[in-house]
């Protein structure tokens, strides 16, 4: 019997090893090696809108919202161990608060959005607190139920505009402020989160994911840390929701829709779980794709569920991890 005679050998590029320390600052090539991927992302995001027409700029705005949700999902799932299937709840909470403040109190969007972001995050966190004592699928189940319940309650009590929602909210002053507001927030959250998960707090959060009993034994309250993590994720989600209601000038129960729960997850899985930037990348690919397929109606959801399924079964590492590997390592086939 002839066994497998070749295998793939991966080695780190020497420049990667050299750039790991402070010495990276000593040569332009190494600084460039470190800065290039980040610069491509930042300038790519900031420059794309200049080359698009009105319609596709709107799509980029929507992609930004999904990117925020994907960041939140990735952060909670991979760094805290809470799989949150209820991203729509954050969108709904933020969107409704901001929209109602605008419609009933008449405050301008630039006042409503920050208030809605903060208060929406507080509310969502408070609602998720009882579920935080659960972990794994228990939390997934509990978080999955909340947006659906929110819809039933709004329909049943016909509160806040009932099934029809409230239209004619104030929109943001012009398209450039719209698009750069969301892109700026996405970039800030992305790099802020990446910093956060490498700080002490990130270490504790990852400890909670891997072995929460050990963290407890070290005298750290895991619930307090989970609350903080959920608050951070819901801040991003609620900002997305508040922004969304002013982007379209409309709020309704579709803010709690399944799209906002499933597309960010698909984006994260596609981009690579645990990379944070992967979710942003995935959202920027998936949202235009689903927009191009708008004519197919419900087929869109089916399609991105298929993409999600294919990626999670056959390519669980995702796009970004793949590119990262190519960027940092070279591969050779070697005889065994």
């Amino acid at each position, binding site marked *: 019997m002839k066994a497998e005679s070749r295998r793939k050998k991966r080695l780190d590029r020497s420049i990667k090893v050299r750039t790991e320390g402070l010495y990276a600052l000593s040569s332009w090539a190494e600084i460039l090696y470190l800065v290039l991927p980040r610069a491509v992302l930042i300038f790519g995001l900031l420059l794309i809108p200049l080359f698009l027409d009105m319609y596709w700029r709107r799509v980029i705005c929507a992609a930004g919202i999904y990117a925020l949700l994907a960041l939140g999902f990735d952060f909670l*799932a991979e760094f805290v161990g809470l*799989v949150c*299937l209820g991203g729509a709840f954050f969108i709904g909470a933020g969107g409704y608060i901001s929209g109602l403040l605008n419609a009933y109190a008449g405050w301008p969007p630039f006042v409503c959005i920050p208030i809605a972001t903060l208060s929406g995050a507080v509310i969502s966190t408070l609602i998720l607190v*009882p*579920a935080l*004592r*659960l*972990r*794994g*699928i*228990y939390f*997934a*189940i*509990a978080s*999955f*139920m*909340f947006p*659906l*319940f929110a819809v*039933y*309650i709004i329909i*049943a*009590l016909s509160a806040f505009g009932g099934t029809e929602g409230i239209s004619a909210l104030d929109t943001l002053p012009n398209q450039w402020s719209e698009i750069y507001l969301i892109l700026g927030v996405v970039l800030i959250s992305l790099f802020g989160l990446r910093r956060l998960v490498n700080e002490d707090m990130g270490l504790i959060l990852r400890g909670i994911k891997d072995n*929460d*009993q050990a963290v407890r034994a070290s005298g750290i309250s895991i619930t307090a840390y989970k609350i903080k993590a959920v608050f951070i994720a819901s801040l991003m989600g609620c900002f997305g929701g508040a922004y969304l209601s002013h982007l379209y000038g409309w709020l309704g129960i579709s803010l709690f829709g*399944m799209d906002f729960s*499933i597309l960010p*997850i*698909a984006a994260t*899985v596609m981009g690579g*779980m645990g990379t944070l930037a992967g979710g942003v990348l995935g959202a920027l690919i998936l949202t235009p794709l689903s927009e191009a397929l708008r004519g*197919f*109606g*419900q*087929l869109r*959801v*089916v399609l991105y*569920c*298929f993409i*999600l*399924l294919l990626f*999670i*079964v056959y390519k*669980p590492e995702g796009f970004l991890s793949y590119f990262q590997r190519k960027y940092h390592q070279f591969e050779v086939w070697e005889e065994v």
Partner: protein
Amino acid sequence: MDILIYGTVNSVIYALIAVGFTLVYGVSRIPNFAHGSIYVLVGFLTWTFLKNLHIPYGIAIVLSLFLATLIGLIIYRLVLIRLRGLPTSEIIASFAVSLIILEGLRMQGIAGFKGFIGPFYMLPPFVDGKVRILGVFVDYQRIIIVAACFALVVLLWVFTHYTKMGLSLRAIAQDEHAAMMLGIHSDRTAMTALSVGSALAGLAAVLILPLGNITAEMGYKVLIYALAVCIIGGLGSWAGAVLASFVIGFAMKISTALFGAMWESVVLVGTIILILLLKPSGLLGKQKELEERV
């Protein structure tokens, strides 16, 4: 009296919905988010067989239950088998399968397929008519549901305690490694569990759906009820699931009688949050609180 009888009927309906989900989770630790979608799918399949292909009702039901079993098997064989032991991926994958089925049913315009949209899909009840029990009118379908549920619970109990297959299901649920050492095939058992679970979802569908319309949105509702029952009763616990469905059934019926139908879902959320706060492992959850859930 009204509350007592209809509360019991409702509780039995919730128990019927949740029993398949509990079975799958208890055995294979896979949260089958596709439960609700299989429920709806079986409803539509039976409807199609009955109305479009003019197959007799009994055969149509058997045929769609068979298909449900097959779908459960396929889901496990194609998707979940590759993801065993990765809880996050299991959740996401079964959730994706569920959405594919549910949204696929609502899809329009592919190959002349019109999509199941709108309120005009109904299954006929098995036996028409009503009967008066203690001064309350109850239709026969509800009585059949209650009887079927009790029969099912007894059957499942016999199945899991006295047949070889059922015993192996329980063995895997208790200690996977020990069971594997005794020659029980872990994947095959989980596959059995998933297909039996799907068949149970389908059975619940054909029993319950004659009470109302079939819509694709019901899939989410069914899934929610199954999940709610499991959370309140403690995941993987049979007695807990039955107890929880009675708690939910009566809580919702009483609140409807007192405050009106719109408060139903509020009461359900309230019950779940209360249970989570007071006893995170559920009413009869067997998991040790510290190790498994907290």
